């Protein structure tokens, strides 16, 4: 400390002499400066795990170097990275991070509320620890407003606040690429859902085979984890569960929830009482009829502690469920919930009470329904569970009795860890639907061109890639500093160099894939090195001998 004080003294002296001698305009305008900003570690996933993200991190480290920061990229395996960023929240400065798109994230609530509400800062999704009273209020209020237009105003305001404060430096919404064999399936029967691409529920029920091949064979690049209606497990698991188990509503191809197992969904005026009529003639895969008691059970079972901990938050606002007749379900909520249709009615699986009732009653102390292995998984969805061979495949059979019966006979999900092999399988016909492609999109497009039988579909993600600043630690607690760092990053460069052009530049936590909710006012963020330097100097930061210093009088509490 004494050393740095001394050095600062010397520097100041030099500046004073410079001023006195009238040497150089820079010295003439030099302000007094605080401590130099410490060396910064930019965390990232490893190059092997996420090459695009790592490449972006390298570029950003270089860009920030030009601002006078000493930035090094520290690549960590995913679990170690989570351990640092998620479980040791006051130890890191900046990290590359991503949020992934999921069907239930078609409602902006999950990102708008969870990512930045102060209640999720200690252990939840707000791992950057950015808190803002105004934002809190908006995030809470948008949940209560049922009128979409009024809610849109709030969601827009939330995005603008984030834009002003830059708790994240958003980089891109990656484009996902999918492909299928158009000689096997009728191209016109494939549905694209915003944010999810063609790999979605509607495609799987509607896609129509053209010839002999009536099996849809698709791939997952991850091992499957569990197929259980009470357990939200791996990403590819949910593609299967949503086909086996029906829901009261489903996210439609326009990204908004639509009645499904419920024929009608009606709200009272203040948005607290919900009346649904159950569709006629539904049956479970074991032949039993689907009743309103089953519906009640599906929503009340997860309300109990330790039955389905991951679903519990989505049903905790339901204060009562009644069944005035054998077709009608009336739910009462403790307060209006604008996201209820998406995050609860389109998310909770309908499960048969006659199968799961006894199982849940028989759970041992400390055991939850998540660890129950149902041998024959009984749902009421358009596909029936046939089998799951660990590390190999899941086979689902079409349910011809379903009112939305699939046109294909079977849906087979193959686990293929090797992306080049998956590409080869698609061309050889071992696979006919590329549902999970993790390689270079350009290669898939080239393969499709060479093959001639493949159709490639690109789709912008609901999820996004970004740089997260730890707002708990100076100088990242200073909005001006964050904003300058974010401004320095040329998004177009990142999009092209790191994502090979397969992405859209980002500046909001609500993706343009959710076109109704996305605030276009945040789209045109001005970036540039000169502008960033100007912003830093306006906020009192100075660059001395190529090193960035805090404003005058500020010491670095986190320097080693």
């Amino acid at each position, binding site marked *: 400390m004494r050393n740095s004080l001394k050095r600062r003294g010397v520097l100041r002296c030099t500046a004073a002499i410079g001023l006195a001698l009238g040497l150089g305009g820079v010295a003439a305008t030099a302000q007094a400066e605080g401590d130099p900003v410490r060396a910064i570690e930019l965390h990232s996933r490893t190059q092997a795990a996420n090459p695009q993200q790592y490449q972006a991190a390298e570029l950003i480290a270089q860009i920030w170097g030009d601002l006078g920061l000493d930035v090094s990229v520290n690549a960590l395996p995913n679990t170690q990275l989570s351990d640092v960023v998620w479980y040791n929240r006051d130890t890191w400065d900046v990290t590359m991070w991503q949020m992934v798109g999921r069907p239930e994230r078609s409602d902006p609530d999950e990102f708008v509320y969870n990512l930045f509400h102060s209640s999720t800062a200690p252990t939840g999704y707000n791992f950057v620890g950015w808190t803002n009273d105004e934002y809190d209020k908006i995030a809470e209020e948008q949940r209560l407003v049922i009128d979409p237009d009024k809610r849109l105003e709030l969601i827009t305001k939330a995005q603008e606040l984030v834009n002003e404060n830059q708790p994240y430096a958003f980089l891109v919404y990656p484009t996902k690429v999918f492909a299928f064999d158009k000689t096997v399936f009728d191209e016109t029967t494939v549905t694209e859902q915003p944010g999810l691409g063609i790999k979605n529920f509607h495609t799987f029920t509607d896609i129509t085979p053209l010839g002999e091949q009536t099996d849809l064979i698709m791939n997952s690049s991850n091992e499957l984890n569990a197929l259980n209606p009470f357990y939200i497990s791996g990403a590819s698991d949910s593609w299967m569960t949503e086909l086996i188990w029906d829901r009261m509503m489903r996210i439609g191809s326009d990204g908004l929830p639509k009645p499904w197992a419920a024929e009608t969904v009606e709200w009272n005026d203040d948005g607290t009482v919900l009346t649904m009529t159950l569709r006629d003639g539904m049956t479970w895969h074991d032949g039993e009829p689907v009743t309103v008691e089953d519906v009640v059970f599906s929503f009340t079972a997860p309300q109990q502690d*330790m039955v389905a901990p991951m679903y519990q938050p989505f049903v905790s606002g339901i204060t009562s469920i009644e069944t005035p007749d054998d077709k009608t379900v009336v739910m009462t909520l403790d307060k209006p919930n604008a996201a209820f249709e998406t995050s609860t009615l389109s998310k909770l699986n309908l499960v048969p009470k006659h199968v799961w009732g006894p199982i849940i009653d028989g759970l041992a102390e400390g055991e939850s329904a998540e660890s129950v292995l149902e041998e024959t998984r009984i749902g009421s969805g358009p596909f029936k569970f046939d089998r799951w061979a660990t590390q*190999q495949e899941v086979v689902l059979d079409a349910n011809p009795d379903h009112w939305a019966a699939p046109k294909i006979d079977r849906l087979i999900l193959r*686990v293929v860890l090797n992306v080049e092999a998956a590409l080869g399988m698609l061309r050889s016909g071992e696979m006919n639907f590329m549902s999970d492609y993790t390689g270079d999109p350009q290669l898939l497009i080239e393969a499709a061109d060479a093959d001639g039988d493949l159709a490639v579909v690109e789709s912008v993600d609901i999820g996004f890639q970004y740089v997260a600043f730890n707002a708990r630690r100076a100088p990242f607690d200073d909005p001006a500093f964050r904003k300058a760092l974010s401004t320095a990053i040329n998004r177009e460069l990142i999009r092209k160099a790191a994502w090979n052009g397969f992405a859209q530049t980002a500046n909001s936590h609500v993706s343009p894939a959710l076109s109704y909710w996305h605030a276009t006012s945040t789209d045109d963020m001005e970036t540039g090195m000169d502008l960033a330097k100007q912003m830093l100097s306006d906020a009192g930061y100075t660059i001395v001998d190529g090193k960035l210093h805090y404003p005058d009088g500020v010491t670095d509490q986190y320097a080693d």
Partner: protein
Amino acid sequence: MKYILTRLAHMLIVLWAVGTILFFMFRLMPGTPLAAFIDNTTTAEQQQALIRQFGLDKSLGEQYWLFITNALQGDLGQSFFFKRPVTDVVMEVLPNTIILTMVSLVVAYVFGTLAGAYLAWHRGRWIEGIGIPLALTTRAAPEFWLGMVMLAVFAFGLGWFPAGGANTSGANFDSEWARIFSLDYLRHLALPAITLAVYLQGLPLLLMRSNMLEVLQEEFITMGRMKGLSNSTILLNHAARNALLPVATAFALGIGSAVGGNVVVETVFSWPGIGRLLVNAVSASDYPLAQGAFLIITFVLIIMNFIADITYHLLDPRVRFAASS
């Protein structure tokens, strides 16, 4: 008999030591099992519930005691990740790994031994100039690369073999045995087994060749020639039998390294096996699955070593004699 009993006692001690090391190793590694679940909407209370459910709220000593006593009863606990008993998960894929490993090892060692003997017999001929560099190259080639070349040529280029998995998508079989003995399984096994065999054959080949060269200098070979024995009798009955002993040891040890090497082959060919399971378990900090799977592998290795020792007895009368006296 006494020999076998001593060996069994040794095996138990080894298992206990390995189990203990595994137990502490995984818990000392950075990372937390919760990290595998954070992408879900977990709250602080839910995280606490998970910790309790995983038994991680107990002291390390208590956890260790539970692990050992349960393991003695054959219960390796429940996988954090799959929420299923470890033994079930492992047993489901273990047959695939054993079949892949054994088939490729046998192919590699039969080929390696014969080719090694052949090259020794033809020392200094032109075939040696091709054979040795070829064996060295394939031995040094990375498995991943080798696998990709195999895929590119035989699966995508010629279309002779499927590119991944252990069975055709959605194929139906009456039983597990019917599945394993089906032509379909064999076609899927071919590429990964050949890749692994190509990678493994270098060691027995070079070992056999150098042993043979040594043995061929021995006096009893000269004696055999003087007796007027045929070349094939000398080669097979006298020289090869002696040269084979170190190769048998290498075979037993090879099982161990092959199980490790399987991780790569299993990933390249999407082969369902224990290697992939282990990678997944370690990266998700799934302690019970990781330690259980390693323990079961250790068990298999110990059994294999035991069998190798017994084989040694049969192959070499000197060992048999030394043990009984």
